[in-house]
């Protein structure tokens, strides 16, 4: 302990987690930006890809490329086995009961649109109510607004506190006999808040209301167990969990999927097609029209293998310690205010600096090699709540280190220098 010169700079020992070792698996992180080593702190926007994922995608195109579920030839069978093998990996990763419950989509956005257009449109009537929260990403607002226009559905919003938590007691009060669905972020992308989803799901189920969770910011950072949470729908994106872009997953309980009409029509999702009418393929294929993103799916499977080799619980614990360190370090920057101070938070550090616009912060720290996001983070209602046009946001992944946080803090001092 005596070796620790400065308790603030080294607030607590990091758990035994070898971040630099994992970081070496990410070739992109070795590069320089503006002549400075890249410090990548924009993981909530998209994560970087380990060599294992890059290799899996390249291997597919080099050795396996063929269409799936169609040919009798060897390559098609190998490609199908790899594609369906990835489905099994995803099933295990979130502990779904059945492969039928894993639908491959383009990302969390498409997953939510699928639920809105298939489940919502076939089940809801004018005046039916959907409960959302004020901290939702636009992708969990706009699909429901489209449904409002189409069906006359009513959106009810759980407000947030100035700490960025759901207002206590407000959620329960929104339920009525017309409530048909709750659609909620598991983890907020703009604030980092982790919502008490298990309790909220149990409450919704008491009213017979199913719950959709937007898990885009949760799956890469903490263990997700859909059966333990008992959520009805769970949406997430591959590219935020170290997999390729353009691939994601909708998990839904089999009983719900069985009742839902197809979302898109085309090849692969049918059993028979006649001009008088067609019949649908079995689950999960009923919801996967057309040739899927085979390479992306296999790459996502490789990302799951990679994450499991590290362990999601270890990742969560490490990122928690790094978040605490980052929170303390940022608070030492003069005139900096954190936006989003929920008690339960994932590794998101949103902040504003007095008299300095977030875009100026972003451009200046970029010159120091530090990549952060600035803007409204596709969560304009959150910005409105805090009466700010934008924030700067540093978001963590397990390959980030204390040195990355230190580089950010140093770059923020540069920002203050420019604007003295």
């Amino acid at each position, binding site marked *: 302990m005596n070796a620790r010169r400065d308790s603030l700079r080294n607030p607590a020992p990091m758990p035994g987690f070898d971040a630099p070792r994992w970081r070496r698996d990410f070739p992109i992180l070795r590069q320089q930006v503006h002549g400075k080593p890249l410090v990548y702190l924009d993981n909530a926007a998209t994560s970087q890809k380990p060599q294992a994922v890059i290799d899996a995608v390249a291997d597919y195109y080099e050795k396996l490329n063929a269409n799936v579920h169609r040919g009798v030839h060897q390559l098609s069978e190998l490609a199908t086995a790899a594609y369906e093998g990835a489905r099994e990996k995803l099933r295990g990763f979130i502990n779904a009961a059945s492969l039928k419950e894993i639908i491959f989509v383009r990302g969390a956005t498409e997953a939510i649109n699928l639920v809105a257009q298939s489940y919502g449109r076939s089940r809801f009537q004018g005046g039916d109510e959907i409960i959302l929260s004020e901290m939702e990403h636009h992708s969990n607002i706009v699909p429901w607004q489209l449904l409002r226009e189409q069906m006359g559905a009513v959106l009810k919003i759980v407000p947030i506190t100035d700490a960025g938590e759901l207002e206590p007691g407000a959620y329960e009060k929104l339920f009525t006999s017309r409530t048909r669905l709750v659609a909620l972020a598991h983890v907020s992308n703009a604030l980092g808040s982790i919502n008490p989803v298990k309790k909220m799901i149990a409450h919704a189920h008491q009213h017979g209301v199913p719950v959709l969770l937007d898990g885009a910011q949760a799956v890469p950072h903490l263990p997700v167990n859909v059966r333990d949470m008992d959520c009805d729908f769970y949406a997430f994106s591959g590219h935020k969990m170290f997999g390729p872009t353009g691939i994601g997953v909708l998990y839904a309980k089999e009983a719900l999927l069985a009742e839902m009409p197809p979302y898109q029509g085309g090849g692969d999702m049918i059993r028979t097609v006649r001009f008088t009418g067609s019949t649908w393929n079995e689950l999960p294929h009923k919801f996967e029209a057309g040739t899927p993103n085979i390479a992306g799916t296999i790459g996502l499977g490789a990302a799951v293998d990679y994450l499991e080799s590290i362990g999601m619980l270890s990742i969560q614990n490490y990122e928690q310690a790094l978040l605490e360190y980052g929170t303390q370090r940022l608070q030492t920057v003069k005139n900096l205010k954190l936006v989003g101070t929920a008690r339960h938070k994932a590794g998101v550090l949103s902040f504003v600096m007095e*008299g*300095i*616009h*977030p*875009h*100026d912060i972003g*451009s*200046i720290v970029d*010159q120091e090699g530090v990549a952060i996001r*600035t*803007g*409204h983070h596709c969560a304009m209602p959150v*910005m409105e709540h805090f009466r700010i*046009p*934008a924030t700067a946001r540093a978001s963590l992944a397990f390959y980030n280190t204390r040195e990355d946080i230190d580089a950010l803090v140093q770059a923020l001092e*540069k920002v203050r220098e*420019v*604007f003295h």
Partner: protein
Amino acid sequence: MDLKELYKDVIVDHNRSPRNFRKIPDATRIQEGFNPLCGDKLTVYLKLDGERISDLSFEGSGCAISVASASLMSERLKGKTVMEAQQLFDRMHALLTREDTDSDLESLGKLAVLSGVREYPSRVKCASLCWHTLKNVLEHPGNPPVSTE
């Protein structure tokens, strides 16, 4: 490229104390501009005396680049004619977006400091918002807000 090229002293100064940052109560024309990507918002107030711009001001919130650009614009165009303002728009548009450098950068005076923005493609819209808003109010008074996305 050095940071100082983007955040020159003139820009930092005009951001800290923007010139003509006020309403014009008897403005001839008022136009709002909006950059939805970053949330920059500004309102340009214009008072015309025939073909002459007798007063030009703005209000709003935005990054240093957008505030400084609007401040410099208002300073430069007060007392100029509508024709001169339109010509200056064309030059500023070229300065912010084109590779070839203005052969007569000096005659742009302080506005030349905005040339550094060209190296930062994501920031060009910040600098050009006020100019597009001005062009719109000169050519089509009474239009809906200008958007630079």
